[in-house]
């Protein structure tokens, strides 16, 4: 896939973060003879937070990093705005290497280009909702009336303009996290870093916020790096998902790719419980048109992006118990009741052939 390089907002190349007193020795060992995580812990008593992270995030993309606690995901997200200095490797934001920025440039980058939302929300208790939302602008030195106008606009986007003059403690957890989001978007950054923002919320509010967040981010054309320990959340929100384990990104891909082709047993175990109904699409299930015995022309047609849920409805309604997949006038394949059952089990056309 070739992409216009100007569209790449975040570019991480072989980024490492090593914690420990002898981190420098450990890094030297990594550099010279490619020492791995285990050797680094054994020989230098250093912990590798992030290892060999290489990925790119494009404009408008929502990139989810999924991992359990201790997997290094929170460290990784803090490397992106240099709250943590990388030990090794290069991180570029819009083509500028952030490790080489001086303090002034770094402050400008954080103020204008990268917003951040925290799991703990971190609303300052003595400030009103409006003044919390305006915090980033206040730091930038935007005049009071102007920053209040912008912050009120951001609060309106998250549906909280009526609460502007309340104190944070009067708001529920979900509302507080909306304020956190409003604070991040008020500075109009191109990138929003979300550090497990919805983890502490109850499931209903959480799903609602996930949908709102995705909608808002897409409508504003922002890129987002979204950290979560919940694969369902990653699938719901992310355009692409990276699975992290022990500091390593063990797989990066779309939800469908990860569910259908888990890179290893660890990922496979994670995706085992994930419902395929909305995830698996017709194009990865369908058989070639020739494999269908009956007359293909008589079948109902649908697009290759149709998910399993939609296909089930179509197949149940069709007397032939099959549906043709077509892009415009071109016939691409056929999905039968049998292929659907296999799809729900988590196999695609390639695996069936084996």
């Amino acid at each position, binding site marked *: 896939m070739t992409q216009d390089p100007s569209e790449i907002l975040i570019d991480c190349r072989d980024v490492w973060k090593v914690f420990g007193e002898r981190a420098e020795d450990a890094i030297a060992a990594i550099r010279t003879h490619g020492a791995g995580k285990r050797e680094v812990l054994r020989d230098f008593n250093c912990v590798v937070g992030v290892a060999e992270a290489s990925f790119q995030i494009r404009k408008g993309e929502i990139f989810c990093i999924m991992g359990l606690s201790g997997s290094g995901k929170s460290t990784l997200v803090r490397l992106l705005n240099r709250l943590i200095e990388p030990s090794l490797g290069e991180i570029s934001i819009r083509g500028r290497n952030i490790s080489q920025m001086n303090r002034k440039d*770094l402050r400008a*980058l*954080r103020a204008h280009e990268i917003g*951040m939302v*925290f799991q703990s929300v971190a609303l300052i208790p*003595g400030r009103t909702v409006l003044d919390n939302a305006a915090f980033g602008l206040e*730091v930038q030195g935007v005049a009071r009336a102007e920053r209040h106008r912008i912050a009120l606009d951001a609060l309106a986007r998250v549906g909280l303009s009526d609460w502007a*003059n309340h104190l944070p*403690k009067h708001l529920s957890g979900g509302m507080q996290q909306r304020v956190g989001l409003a604070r991040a978007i008020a500075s109009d950054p191109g990138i929003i870093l979300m550090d497990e923002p919805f983890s502490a919320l109850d499931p209903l509010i959480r799903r609602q916020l996930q949908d709102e967040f995705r909608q808002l981010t897409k409508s504003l054309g922002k890129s987002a790096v979204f950290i979560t320990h919940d694969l369902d959340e990653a699938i719901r929100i992310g355009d692409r998902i990276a699975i992290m384990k022990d500091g390593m990104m063990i797989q990066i891909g779309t939800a469908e790719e990860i569910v259908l082709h888990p890179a290893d047993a660890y990922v496979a175990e994670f995706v085992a419980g994930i419902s395929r109904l909305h995830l698996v699409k017709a194009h990865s299930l369908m058989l070639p048109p020739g494999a269908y015995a009956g007359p293909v022309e008589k079948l109902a047609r649908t697009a290759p992006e149709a998910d399993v849920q939609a296909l089930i409805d179509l197949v149940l309604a069709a007397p032939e118990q099959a549906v043709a997949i077509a892009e415009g006038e071109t016939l691409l394949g056929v999905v039968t009741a049998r292929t659907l059952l296999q799809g729900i089990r988590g196999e695609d056309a390639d695996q069936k052939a084996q």
Partner: protein
Amino acid sequence: MAWRDGIKAFDAAIDAGMVWISSHGNEAFALLRGLLEGGFGAILWLLAELPFWALAGMVGALGWRLLGARFGAFATASLALCAALGLWTETIETLALVLSATTMAVLIGGGIGVFAGLSPRLAQVLDPVLDLIQTLPPYLYLLPAIAFLGYGPATAILATFIVAVPPTVKLTALGISRTPVEFLELGAASGASGWQVFAKIRLPFALASIMAGVNQSLMMAFGMVVIAGIVGSGGLGQTIYASVRTLDIARSVDAAIAIVVLTIVLDRLSQTAARPQGQQKEIRT
């Protein structure tokens, strides 16, 4: 005997040292004395300009606003009682002593506390010193003060300052150092400068702790100004000291009552400011 000679030599050395310090530092001590007495004089002048009922009314109004009508009435009645006991001049002298020593403690101690809160190493050095100040009997601080500054309110204020300063330093340092880490992260991630993080995040979070320190310093100062009556501080402390020497117990009890009600009023007023942010009246924009 040898050890007696040793002690004599020790005493002689101290005397010589004191003579040397007072002869060489004379101008510095004169300046310090002038500053302390000047500040005290200014505050006393302000308080003395007002008739007692005006001051009582103002304190009552402040109490009413901060703590409600009942406390406001109590505060006014307390000050009126001080005047009724015939101790108004002494009362405002004591008030001026406490306010000047506490103001110094808050300005200097607060400044030191901020640096100690930001630098764990400075805090490590300061902690044993502050602990020592609080461990020793406060009476002791009158000795160096009177040696250098002589008999009078300047000595009383300096000794009171020494006794009053540790709580402000300690609680300011504690408040400043205990900023929740997620808020420091918020500051950094928002592109805030070091000064902005201090002013907009660290200080608001530390305020309740700082105010608790100020309240405690104020209370320490009240305790000390009574003791300082012995070095000619003026005010209620000196009244108590003088009455006790002449066995005028009734008058010393009057002065003690005045001290107690004055302490209660100022304690409650300064405690209100120390309440956590959530319990104060809502801030409106």
